[in-house]
């Protein structure tokens, strides 16, 4: 059972990511704060007796459900369903070399030093904007898998889909981000 301090520490560690994840989905800071608060309360009321190790997965699921509830309440279900079911192909653009692009971006980031502070902030803003532009399912899979550091099975559980779908979404998200960042000039 998680103690008050453990629960508080967990929420402190998760709250900013939760807020950003939700903001990407609903595009509204106030709504995102309400949803995160709602998710925190649901976690505290119903799952505070669970072991600490289970809380990230449970909280991820609650947050996703709370976000969906918000969409339902806002009566934009149609838009949400369209966004949440976008299994669109990422486009088999044969002339885009993902490996070369990733290698280039990798080299670019590795070479950044403290002197590149302004450039760094611009890069972070660019990343933020491009993540926000990802299709919802791709973004959810990417953030849960790499930002929340859930494994593929846990990500699938939170998203309510198969492990294979998670891998596909993640791969497409990486592809789209690499392409977009390269196009915006994040090059060696």
């Amino acid at each position, binding site marked *: 059972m998680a103690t*008050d301090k453990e*629960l*508080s520490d967990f*929420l*402190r560690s998760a*709250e*900013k*990511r939760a*807020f*950003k994840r939700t903001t990407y989905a609903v595009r509204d*800071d106030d709504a995102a*704060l309400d949803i*995160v*608060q709602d998710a*925190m*309360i649901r*976690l*505290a*009321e119903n799952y*505070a*007796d669970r072991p600490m190790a289970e809380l990230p997965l449970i909280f991820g699921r609650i947050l996703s459900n709370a976000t969906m509830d918000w969409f339902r309440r806002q009566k934009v279900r149609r838009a949400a369903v369209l966004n949440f079911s976008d299994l669109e192909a990422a486009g088999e653009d044969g002339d885009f070399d*993902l*490996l070369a692009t*990733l*290698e280039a*971006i*990798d080299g670019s*980031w590795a070479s950044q030093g403290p002197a590149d502070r302004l450039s760094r902030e611009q*890069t*972070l*803003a660019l*990343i*933020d904007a491009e*993540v926000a532009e990802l299709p919802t399912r791709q973004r959810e899979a*990417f*953030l849960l*898998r*790499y*930002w929340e550091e859930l494994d593929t099975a846990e990500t699938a559980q939170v998203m309510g889909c198969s492990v294979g779908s998670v891998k596909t979404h*993640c*791969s497409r*998200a*990486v592809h789209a*981000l*690499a392409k977009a960042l390269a196009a915006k000039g994040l090059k060696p």
Partner: protein
Amino acid sequence: MNPMTRARRPDLDALQARFARRVAAGLSERSGALPHDIGERLRVAREQAVARARQTRLAQPAAARQLSVQSQGHLALGESPSLWQRFASVLPLMLLVLGLVLIQHLHEQAEIHAAAEVDAALLADDLPPEAYGDPGFVAFLKQPEP
């Protein structure tokens, strides 16, 4: 997928994972600098959630204690509480058995009473002449008096 791409696949997977983690690290870095008011609202939300969890935890043992006290409330009835409790639990069963015995007894009494009434009516009634033609009745008449 051509053979060259297949050969480079492990590199690609590793690079994809490293790229994704760097993007995630960038997101963490950026979200660490959220506006003050948002940070404050998140802090308030967190504190409310922790307070709610505390209330829930406190409420559960209190409810359990209340239930326990209620179940032990019969202890005050006498010197031997377990005996009283057992008696109280057996009492409805005893009443049920007694009731069944009583019903059975009344039913038997009613049957006896009905049979007696039929016998009395037969004995009190006039003997029909046809009875003397009945071999069984004649045999009955020839029996010695007890």
